[in-house]
């Protein structure tokens, strides 16, 4: 049985009221969804709330999932993306004032604990440098427009293929590619500017 068949079976069991099947789905997908939310929303607290919202939405609409229409991951990404866009709209005004106040906070949350531990073995200077670098990239990502941000997250962080991304975002594949390239270029420009300021 391949991955798609396993998921299809889990979904059917879940729709039939099997709580263990639902737990299996949660276990399989929560990391991925959490990471998308974390990179899009920018902080752990919002990422937790959003991930939970995604699963609540999934749970309510699981019976509408049609495996014939596409991969489960694409369906999940569509739900996630729609909630993230809603979240972005709601917090837009807050974000505008944030950007005037200076750099975003919660620096320590940008660093996974596992990395902090791994970093300690690499020597303090190098570790601090790579941590700061990742933090800068994460902050720069927050400055991209939501269209570009979601595109690069799905491609460069989640390794989704262009066709899947196009389905999830409901835009043509050419648009996806264009957004990904613009997003990458914009991020590089932002980071070059930040580096120049730091140095």
């Amino acid at each position: 049985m391949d991955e798609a068949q396993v998921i299809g079976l889990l979904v059917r069991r879940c729709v039939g009221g099997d709580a263990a099947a639902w737990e299996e789905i949660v276990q399989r997908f929560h990391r991925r969804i959490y990471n998308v939310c974390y990179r899009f929303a920018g902080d752990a607290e919002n990422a937790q709330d959003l991930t939970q919202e995604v699963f609540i939405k999934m749970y309510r609409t699981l019976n509408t999932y049609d495996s014939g229409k596409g991969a489960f991951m694409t369906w999940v990404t569509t739900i996630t993306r729609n909630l993230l866009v809603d979240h972005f709209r709601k917090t837009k005004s807050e974000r505008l004032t944030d950007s005037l106040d200076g750099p975003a906070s919660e620096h320590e949350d940008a660093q996974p604990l596992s990395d902090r531990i791994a970093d300690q073995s690499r020597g303090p200077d190098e570790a601090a440098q790579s941590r700061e670098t990742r933090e800068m990239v994460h902050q720069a990502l927050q400055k991209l427009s939501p269209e570009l941000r979601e595109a690069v997250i799905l491609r460069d962080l989640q390794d989704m293929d262009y066709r899947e991304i196009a389905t999830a975002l409901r835009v043509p594949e050419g648009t996806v590619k264009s957004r990904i390239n613009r997003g990458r270029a914009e991020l590089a420009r932002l980071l070059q500017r930040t580096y120049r300021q730091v140095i």
Partner: protein
Amino acid sequence: MPEETKHGANCTEFEALLTEAIEGRLTGAQKESFEAHRRTCGICGPLFAEVQAGREWLRSLEAVEPPTFLVHNILAATSGVVSTRVAAPGALGTTPRRERLREWWDSWFAPLNAFVRQPRFVMSFGMIFFSGSLALSAAGVKASDVAKVSLRPSSIRHAYTDAQIKVVKYYDNVRFVYEIESKVRELKRAATPAEPAPQEEKQNHKNDTSGQPQERQDRNYSREQGDTVLAGLNGSEVIPVRPVASDAGTADLRIQGCSQPAARGSRVVSNNRRFV
């Protein structure tokens, strides 16, 4: 693509091939013409460098581990069936300070919490509270007085000593009264040995349904005064605490009875695992 790069057929082609080129999927003649344009075009060359750099920056970001309680929270908010394998030990997470504090707090107080939720503890606590309140009322402390109580250690000590003195005095007074009463009774018996118990005494106790002789009743009464705790404990009114306690355990796990699937399954969370 930014508008300014679209200054020729080659540039448009270059853009179209950019993602494939960056990901190393171009071959043969296509790759050669792409490379040639990159080297010569003043717009597409730098653009390529930026896109490539941006992609590398993004790929330097590693996956973060969600907090360990996330799966638990999701399950609680959806099916309500909380996992048996949630929060695998050793799983590291980007836990916000607030949650880390909660985890730390739980690690200390969860065992205590589990103990506190046991019916045995609730019973004992009920007993202590009940006997405590009886002792206070016996000592003449009224609920209205409590509001006026000062919580400074010195005044608490004073209040405690005062209450103790009151209790001792009360007990002494009661004992003194009974001693006198029994002495009087003895004297009466000594004075009229053949006489049965006086008539008016029977009338006084016509509500008596215990069927016990007068003397035994007095003794029971004095025991009630001296040792009120036992009288309270044996009563069945303390026992209903038990179901209340176990209900509280399950109630907060049935969070947000969720939509259709929850109704379909209508499972109840197994509360034991979480608390014990």
